[in-house]
């Protein structure tokens, strides 16, 4: 290994690519894309708040008032709770008007239907004595598939009818409110150990953040490693280079250069993110409700996060390099390259089980398998620091894996240089590895 050669190759990779349009386009487009898929839908949902004009026709003569006041409340009681799922769907509010029952019921119903079709009102509710006795209230609307609206509606109607019945049973309307007051549920989670339950979420979030960052950087730059190797082979630049640089140094330089590029990108993103959101974060921490835990990030975790990010990049980039070295054109290589992402996604499925039991044999073994280590070891460190020897062992194993893969790729590269126009078989690749 010649550090000088590696440095020159890495420098070229970095400077050439950072001068290119591709880097800046990716750097700009990806945050925009993320904003588009995360922020926009919630903005749209927020905008989607609707007021439904509802006509209430009550032929019992007792429920109309209660129904109107129940529906007219700013939002259904449940929707007001800080319960994300419900809150999102509960953006529907009602604008009820009570209309007296007409002499001809059938004609009135037809007229209401007509008004719904004409768009003058959104729905109408029909209460009659027979229905009420049988616990039925009719709801007619153009769209009856929105079960969130219906559930909010059912809650409102139920509580209104309940009040009507209680009043009919002779209860004082004043006291009904107090008697039917719902209880609040104070949730206290009991983890295996007190601290773990709280750490679980933070750890999960951390591993997930690492996953997202790795995924993005690998999706962009892993492919670049592969196409870069293919370009050198395809244009025969490599014939000039191998006389001066060992293939191992060439590949290692390429990986380092492109890794630095990925890091530059991440730094640009984070700096922008921090500058844009810092005031908001500071403000929100100050206003955090007393009971809520601030997410805590230890120094050890932050360091490991950074190290495993770089290692993770190398693990996957070396796989791409090996694939690039084995094939002659992008199309052939891409078919195989699709499998690389599998190694990145596979540990995601293990994450849930590891959160539950970070010291299980499964967790220990899986977190020591190099392609899984970056995600799973970070997760374990975030949950509950594993023994030091395991962390160190995972470093050693991952570095060995990277070294071995570059060595392997270099051998394939060295021998594969002179193969063209032919898709190599596994046996041939194996022969190249042993030759060279």
């Amino acid at each position, binding site marked *: 290994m010649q550090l*000088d*050669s590696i440095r*020159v*190759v890495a420098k*070229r990779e970095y*400077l*050439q690519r950072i001068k*290119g349009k591709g880097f800046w386009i990716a750097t700009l487009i990806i945050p925009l894309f993320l904003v588009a898929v995360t922020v926009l839908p919630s903005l749209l949902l927020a905008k989607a708040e609707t007021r439904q004009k509802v006509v209430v026709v009550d032929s019992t003569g007792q429920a109309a008032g209660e129904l109107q006041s129940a529906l007219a409340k700013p939002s259904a009681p449940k929707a007001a709770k800080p319960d994300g799922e419900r809150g999102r769907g509960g953006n529907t509010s009602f604008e009820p008007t009570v209309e007296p029952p007409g002499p001809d019921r059938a004609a009135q119903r037809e007229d209401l239907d007509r008004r719904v079709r004409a768009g003058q009102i959104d729905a109408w509710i029909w209460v009659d004595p027979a229905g009420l006795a049988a616990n039925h209230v009719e709801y007619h609307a153009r769209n009856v598939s929105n079960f969130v609206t219906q559930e909010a509606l059912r809650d409102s109607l139920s509580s209104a009818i309940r009040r009507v019945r209680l009043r009919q049973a002779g209860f004082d309307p004043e006291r009904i409110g107090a008697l039917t007051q719902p209880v609040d549920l104070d949730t206290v989670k009991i983890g295996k150990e007190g601290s773990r339950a709280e750490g679980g979420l933070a750890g999960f979030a951390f591993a997930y953040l690492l996953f997202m960052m790795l995924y993005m950087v690998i999706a962009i730059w892993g492919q670049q490693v592969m196409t870069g190797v293919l*370009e*050198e082979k395809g*244009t*025969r*630049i*490599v*014939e*000039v*280079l*191998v*006389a*001066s*640089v060992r293939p191992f140094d060439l590949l290692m330089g390429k990986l380092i250069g492109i890794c630095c590029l990925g890091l530059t990108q991440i730094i640009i993103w984070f700096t922008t993110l921090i500058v844009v959101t810092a005031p908001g974060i500071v403000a929100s921490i100050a206003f955090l409700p007393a009971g809520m835990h601030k997410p805590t990030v230890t120094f050890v975790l932050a360091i490991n996060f950074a190290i495993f990010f770089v290692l993770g990049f190398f693990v996957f980039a070396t796989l791409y390099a090996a694939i690039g070295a084995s094939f002659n054109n992008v199309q052939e290589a891409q078919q195989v390259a699709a499998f690389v992402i599998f190694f990145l996604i596979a540990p995601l499925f293990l994450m849930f089980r590891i959160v539950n039991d970070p010291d299980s044999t499964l967790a220990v073994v899986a977190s020591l398998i190099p392609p899984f280590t970056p995600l799973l070891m970070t997760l374990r460190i975030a949950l509950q620091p594993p023994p030091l020897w395991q962390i160190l062992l995972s470093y050693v194993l991952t570095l060995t894996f990277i070294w071995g893969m570059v060595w392997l790729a270099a051998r394939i590269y060295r021998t594969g*240089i*002179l193969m063209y126009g032919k898709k190599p078989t596994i046996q041939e690749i194996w022969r190249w590895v042993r*030759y060279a």
Partner: protein
Amino acid sequence: MEPILELVDVRKSYGDFTAVSGVSMAVPPGSIFGLLGPNGAGKTTTIRMIMDIIAPDSGEVRFFGHPRTAKDLGRIGYLPEERGLYRKMTVVDQLLFLAEIRGLKSRDALPEIERWLERFELASWGKKKVEELSKGMQQKVQLIGTVLHKPDILILDEPFSGLDPLNQEMFREFLVESRRQGKSVLFSTHGMELAERMCDHICLISHGRAVLTGELSAIKRRLSGNSYRLVADGDLARLAQVPGVEQVLAQERSAKLLLAPDADGAAVLRQIVQFADVREFRSEEPELEEIFIKAVRDAA
């Protein structure tokens, strides 16, 4: 004088196909050495074995009097058959990279690059991307890339292919100048005329075997006794049937004849006058092209 580069019985097969079967040759210092042969003869495979891009099945490559080491390759400037440059890099960046990868410092390399671009009439193209250059220009850029680190030996695979006559002349002058500076040049070609004008030594490869090798002037002298120039009117197509004539290179109203080693020039002439009106018949040094064709045919 001890050869600066020597091949000893080098062989290479790909499965059943023998690309090079036992080539031996020696490049003396300060000479221009032509590796000649038809397409597919094994020239590029031989050069790649010299450059350690592929390993020979057997045989030895020796540089500067000893078996090749990795360090020797640093003293060589190599121009591969297929020109390889990073398409998106500018000419200067590209050359700087090639210089740095061979251990030059960029502050030393930059003036050199300027000088060479000037010399090859590319001075105004330094900031352009390689993909914007014509093929001939790219070839010149690549040649500059091969010589920046001041190699002792230049190994050029088909350096003249795809060049217009002006650029061919520029390359030729450059090679002759390199020889004057004491460097050795080995280049492959199937263009006999250029080789004839420049080469001191040749090795002629056909079907993977070296069929003729040595100093060009000596080879010519050896074959000159049997080579004749004929100027005549008549049915020159019949020349090939004349006993004693081994090879005919016919042109308009004239032909180069190569006779069998034991043939008698006068006897052959007596045969020819029977069907042609001979104006001229004289002994002449053979051209490399004749030698080439005869050697390839004999070897087949």
